[in-house]
């Protein structure tokens, strides 16, 4: 199989996912009660005439099939339309918001990794007391709601100690608390997955071979165990990162941050179709790209997958 054909398949699949996501958004929007034209006008009790004119301008009086085709045609040209609510092009709205979300998601994942990896390596299959403590703590963190952790952190570090700003804004200092809040909820899952993978790898005969060669315990874990544990870890972190990039409404709200999550939440309640469409498109795109990247990373980590699909 040629390289172009091998690349074509995932590309087409991603296209299918995007089309599917947008179609569902379009359908949901039109199935919900309420009139977008009234929302778009933004005035209380508009006259029936005005509403009718607006409906005509927005193309809402045309048959649904025609609206769908027009909708897809615009998407293909990269024209996401103008937000009904903010009266700004959606592409600009997204561009302004996406950066805040990406920073937050990546920072949160990085913090989670920095804690999870040493924790799992230290406790996998040894130190029963510490392992039990860590595993109990992970369960507690995973099951605590992030808004609550967020509020705890805020009241301690912002209100009482004053180390970090109450309203995050876009500063680096403002990033710390929201990122930690998100990381706390991820750490539990990541550590569990990683420790489980490590323990399975350390049970395999090749680790006995490695030890029989005089390799020390830490090197056995880092060199042999960790790489095997990376495969399930990749799967989980891909999903987590995707979910984070799709917007983290709760944390953005608690810390009054900008971001895709808040935009999406307001857009949905105010029936702002262009904005919702844009957010869905970005989220779906993020998931497709992450999937591709993770597929590639699987092959980097595990040579057996390279030959299997070659």
């Amino acid at each position, binding site marked *: *199989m040629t390289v172009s054909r091998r690349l074509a398949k995932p590309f087409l699949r991603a296209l299918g996912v995007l089309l599917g996501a947008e179609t569902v958004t379009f359908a949901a929007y039109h199935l919900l009660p309420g009139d977008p034209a009234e929302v778009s006008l933004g005035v209380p009790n508009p006259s029936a005439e005005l509403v009718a004119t607006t409906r005509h301008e927005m193309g809402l009086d045309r048959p649904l099939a025609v609206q769908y085709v027009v909708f897809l045609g615009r998407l293909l040209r990269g024209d996401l339309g103008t937000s009904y609510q903010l009266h700004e092009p959606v592409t600009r709205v997204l561009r302004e918001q996406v950066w805040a979300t990406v920073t937050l998601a990546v920072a949160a994942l990085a913090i989670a990794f920095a804690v999870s990896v040493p924790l799992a390596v230290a406790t996998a*299959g*040894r130190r029963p007391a510490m392992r039990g403590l860590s595993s109990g703590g992970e369960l507690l963190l995973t099951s605590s709601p992030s808004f609550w952790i967020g509020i705890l952190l805020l009241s301690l570090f912002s209100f009482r100690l004053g180390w970090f700003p109450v309203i995050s804004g876009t500063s680096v200092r403002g990033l710390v608390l929201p990122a930690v809040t998100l990381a706390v909820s991820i750490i539990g899952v990541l550590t569990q997955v990683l420790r489980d993978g490590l323990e399975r790898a350390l049970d*395999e*005969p*090749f680790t*006995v*071979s*490695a*030890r*029989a*060669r*005089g*390799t*020390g315990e830490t090197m056995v874990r880092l*060199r*042999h165990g960790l*790489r*095997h544990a990376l495969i399930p870890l990749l799967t989980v972190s891909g999903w987590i990162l995707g979910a984070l990039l799709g917007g983290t409404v709760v944390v953005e709200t608690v810390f009054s941050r900008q971001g895709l999550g808040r935009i999406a939440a307001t857009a949905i309640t105010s029936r702002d179709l262009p904005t919702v469409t844009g957010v869905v498109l970005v989220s779906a795109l993020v998931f497709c790209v992450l999937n591709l990247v993770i597929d590639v990373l699987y092959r980097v*980590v*595990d*040579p*057996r997958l390279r*030959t299997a699909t*070659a």
Partner: protein
Amino acid sequence: MPDSATGPRRPPAPAPGPPGRPLLDVRDLRVTFPAHRSRVRPVRGVDLTLAAGECLAIVGESGSGKSVTVRSLLGLAGPRARVEAERMDLDGEDLLSMSARRLRQVRGGSIGLVLQDALVSLDPLRPVRAEIAEALRNHRVVAGRDVPGRVVDLLDQAGVPEPEVRARQYPHELSGGLRQRALIAAAMAAEPPILVADEPTTALDVTTQARLLASLAGRKSAGTALLLVSHDLAVVAGIADRVAVMYQGLIVEQGPAADLLSTPAHPYTRLLLAAVPSAANRGLPLAPPTTAAATPQPTGGCVFAPRCPQVTDRCLEQRPTAVPVGPGRSARCWYAEPARPTAPAAPARSLPVQARPVQATAPILTASGLTKSFPGPDGSARRAVDDVSFELRPAEILGVVGESGSGKTTVANLILALLAPDSGTVLLDGEAWSRRPEPQRRPLRRRIQLVPQDPLGSFDPRYTVARIVGEAVPERGDQRRRRVAALLDRVGLAAGLLDRRPAQLSGGERQRVAVARALAPEPAVLVCDEPVSALDVSVQAQILDLFDGLRRDLGTAMLFVSHDLGVVQHLSDRVMVMRAGRVVEAGDADEVFEHPGHPYTQDLLAALPRLRPGRVDLAKDGGARRDTTGYARTTGEPLP
């Protein structure tokens, strides 16, 4: 015995100590694992010595404690293991009181360990050179920049062709034999004076096994002390100087290989020797009838008493100590006496070879011109099976032999109609079988049943034995349960196993359950795909006896696929030797094995491990070949 300084490539071999002192000296080694409310004692008092240039083989069935014994030498018996010994000295240095740091130097530096099945014993995510380089760096054998070159040298010395290419490859890209060699290269990288090999050839074909054993013998003659662990006496016969037979954590017999194999003193050694299948003992049972499952003896008596054919009251009450039974020999038995083995006990059940199918009966199964191709990695078609034809008559066992990749399993799948042939046909009872739509074939499927190699993988782990076998039984309710119990009885299992789950069964019990399930719909043909290759010799013997009994009592015909020539020769009436998808030789089993026509068959036979060590013949008869054991695998000589 060649001395340790012969190898010109071996720089300062860690001093083998003053002459007479063994490299390894172990007295009363005991290993215990904490278990639920009690302790498991896999090793209960083992004495071992090993000198440079010597090969000691530890032989025993799985669970005998042989792997735990050798792993505890490197402190690798497991984190929960408690290892105690009166003495455990490596070249005069106590292994038990070593610091963790010193122990890491010993691992790989003084003792190299090679595990079974290199596919899982080499890290699948790293190229083989990384594994060898790891050993070189751990022990600082050469300067960092010389590591890649040394890796290639080591692979070359281990007999790996094209070492530069192989070094860059991953374990899954190498054949089983090459993987095992790479593992040996890694274990020998720091040139340890002792090499421990735990079942190094168990996963390999006969020819590959023979080459690997030869390469280990080369290490031995270069001065390396070899500690070989195996469940198969035949494998170690050609290479071991001394043999220690282990049973339930004790060495029950120990002595020079030639003496021990020709005149075993312990009943268990005799049982192991008798269990080796060959043409000579065809039609005869390989294992004594099992009376009780081998349960550990919690109190006093001899560990082997529950399975011993010569058991007396004394054996049940007092544990025998190791008594000398000849020069350098000892055995743990009250009645130990070196004796030539006789035919196994209970011949009453056996009818000798006559039970051959009558050639005049019509064949049940006729395969003609079967061909099957699969797409290769580059997209081109690769012929897995090429123009294979045969017939199978009632009560006949047709053996299919060949190395892995020769197309044996594809033939089995074509016969089972799990694959459709590209061309050629299979007829069942004279009617179309392969070329008919599946809905028409389904009611006939009960006529052909499969006994798989790995029964564990073919069982739902959540099902009980009653449900696993019951699925294949047409009856319902109580009747079903009675029928299942009857089937279990037929395969020699107690009804008490009905409510067990697969994980709670031993390997032999699982295989018996698989046979019971295959028998449930009363098939005319059993397709057995490597049914005994995952089993110990002694368990294998029982399963082979079972197959022979089924054929005799029920008249079931069998297509018996195996890479083990001894097994095929023991059981089959006719054989088909396959290579690269083609049948290179076929015919009557005796005829093919005694007068192999094709060079490939001759090679396979030559590679077969023999129970008679060659040196026995030389020592006793000045070179004249003599049958010393009567258990030679390769020729059809009758028992003495």
